């Protein structure tokens, strides 16, 4: 029983990280209806930035704040200069731009920082908490995820800028008519997504270590989480993230062993999607004929 509880709790910790990245995917999807394949590599790059700052002697939390801000600006610039020109191209062409961005970021990170695995420090103490059921880092990662969620909720519900961004996502044409600068709202959405991704990257790096390919597995889980929860629902993405994290851990530990856990987790997710094709919390689109 205790072993089971341990697996569930550590599943919640990784699930929190999947949830953050899934949230970043949903942010971009909601405003532009694109799925950003490069989200994981953007987070990886941000984490390397943080590593550079920490290696240069900055304190962990200062580096954290600086990285989040820098990632926000980078996300903004990527939208302005790379995504804007293909705004009206066919969807799959945009996907190609995302894949291009993915390989560029991956390759440049490998070039600058080399492909050797680096360890990334955790800001939390090393000793276990809750009577040995969790490490402090796992508890901290869940805490940070929840803080990010609350901040985002407050931002979107209670600030004029958040309202403007929601309006843009829902109806860009009407938003423009009432004077919202739609283009900038989309860029802001990218910036926010990059910043959230950076947080996820810095939280998972102490667990999976730092290397240019660290995010490939994580991004897949984040996709699965976002789609499981419903790609147009931020709350769904977060719950989906926790479900995927727990499922992955429990399945791997008790049912089929670690070598097939990715496969099984995906099969379960697809089985759910077959029953509920728009995800657990997604809006069911009914079209009039």
């Amino acid at each position, binding site marked *: 029983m205790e072993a089971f509880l341990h697996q569930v709790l550590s599943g919640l910790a990784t699930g929190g990280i999947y949830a953050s990245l899934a949230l970043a995917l949903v942010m971009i999807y909601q405003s532009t209806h694109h799925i950003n394949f490069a989200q994981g590599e953007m987070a990886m790059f941000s984490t390397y930035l943080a590593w550079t700052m920490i290696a240069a002697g900055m304190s962990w939390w200062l580096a954290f704040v600086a990285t989040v801000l820098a990632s926000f600006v980078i996300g903004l610039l990527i939208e302005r200069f790379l995504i804007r020109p293909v705004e009206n191209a066919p969807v799959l062409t945009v996907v*190609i731009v995302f894949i*291009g961005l993915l390989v560029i970021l991956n390759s*440049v990170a490998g070039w600058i920082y080399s492909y050797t695995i680096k360890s990334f420090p955790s800001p939390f103490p090393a000793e276990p908490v809750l009577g040995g059921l969790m490490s402090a880092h796992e508890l901290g990662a869940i805490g940070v995820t929840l803080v990010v969620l609350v901040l985002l909720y407050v931002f979107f519900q209670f600030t004029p800028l958040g309202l403007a961004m929601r309006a843009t996502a829902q109806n860009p044409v009407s938003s423009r008519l009432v004077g919202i600068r739609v283009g900038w709202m989309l860029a802001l959405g990218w910036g926010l997504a990059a910043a959230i991704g950076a947080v996820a990257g810095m939280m998972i790096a102490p667990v999976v270590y730092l290397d240019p390919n660290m995010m490939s597995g994580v991004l897949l889980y984040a996709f*699965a989480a976002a789609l499981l929860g419903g790609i147009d629902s931020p709350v769904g993405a977060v719950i989906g993230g926790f479900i995927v994290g727990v499922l992955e851990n429990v399945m791997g530990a008790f049912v089929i062993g670690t070598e097939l856990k990715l*496969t099984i987790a995906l099969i379960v997710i697809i089985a759910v999607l*077959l029953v509920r094709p728009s995800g657990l919390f997604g809006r069911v689109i009914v079209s009039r004929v």
Partner: protein
Amino acid sequence: MSGKAPEAESAGAGTAVRAGLRLWAALGLLLVLALLCALPFLVSSYRTFQFTMALVYAIVLLGLNILTGYNGQISLGHGAFFAVGAYVAAVLMDRFGVPYWATIPASGLVCLVFGYLFGLPALRLQGHYLALATFALAVAMPQLLKYKAIEEWTGGVQGIVILKPDPPAGLPFNQDQWLYLLTLAIAVIMFALAWNLVHSRVGRALMAIRDHPVAAEAMGVNSAWYKSAAFGISALYTGVGGALGAIVVQFVAPDSFTAGLSINFLVGVVIGGLASISGAIWGALFIQFVPNIADQISKAAPWAIYGIFLIAFAYAMPTGVAGFLRLLWRRIARRG
């Protein structure tokens, strides 16, 4: 009456011009085919191998294009069908002593069934959700191939080594040239079949489902059947490509069929041009040769250069190389 005459005349001239252009197009096609046949006798063995692989990719991309381009179902999992085709061929040759040429249709058939069955549950999923489901298949494939219970046939992580087939006795080719010509012959047949398919009733039904599913249903198109059939046919093409690929590379192993391969196929289809037969060739040339070019430009970060190429193509030709050429062609035709 007199008012109508000039119009009819100009229309007649238009068809004459179009017929002339079609003649040129046919002549051009023949010339290209002749050049393709001569190619392995003009370049080195290694280049011949590369062109053979490009032909293999062209067959795969054609299959993917039937599904994604003509039927509008996004697949990020064709690497899995490619793997199944390759493994069926390799296991048949290695464990059962089946001659290499017989494994190609066998792989195609196995993939047809596999693809059709996979297409049935996929009917419920659309767009991004379908992309995820197929991507999951691609991600799972290497793990499944390594699975202990089937190691006796698949050779586990080690994979299977295949011997390079000899050309039939009496033909004056070396092994690479023979493989190239065999692949070319199969590719030509597959292209002709695909061309006929998309210009037939079936092709129109597939495109109608892509463009307006409700209208297609109302016209009496059995959309569920066509969609899963499109999956099956697409997998058949990919399986044939996989079998040829295995024979050409002479080796199969689980880690040659990663999710990256599936993404590469999608890249090829989009860069080549969606819903276009010739697009498969441009896409295949892109995914075969651009990584090499990128590697020559920068040894330090070749994939960064590849990414720049990708983005540049997406900017310059949003409808793919084939779409770009079609635009160019139309402009010439209008002027002529």
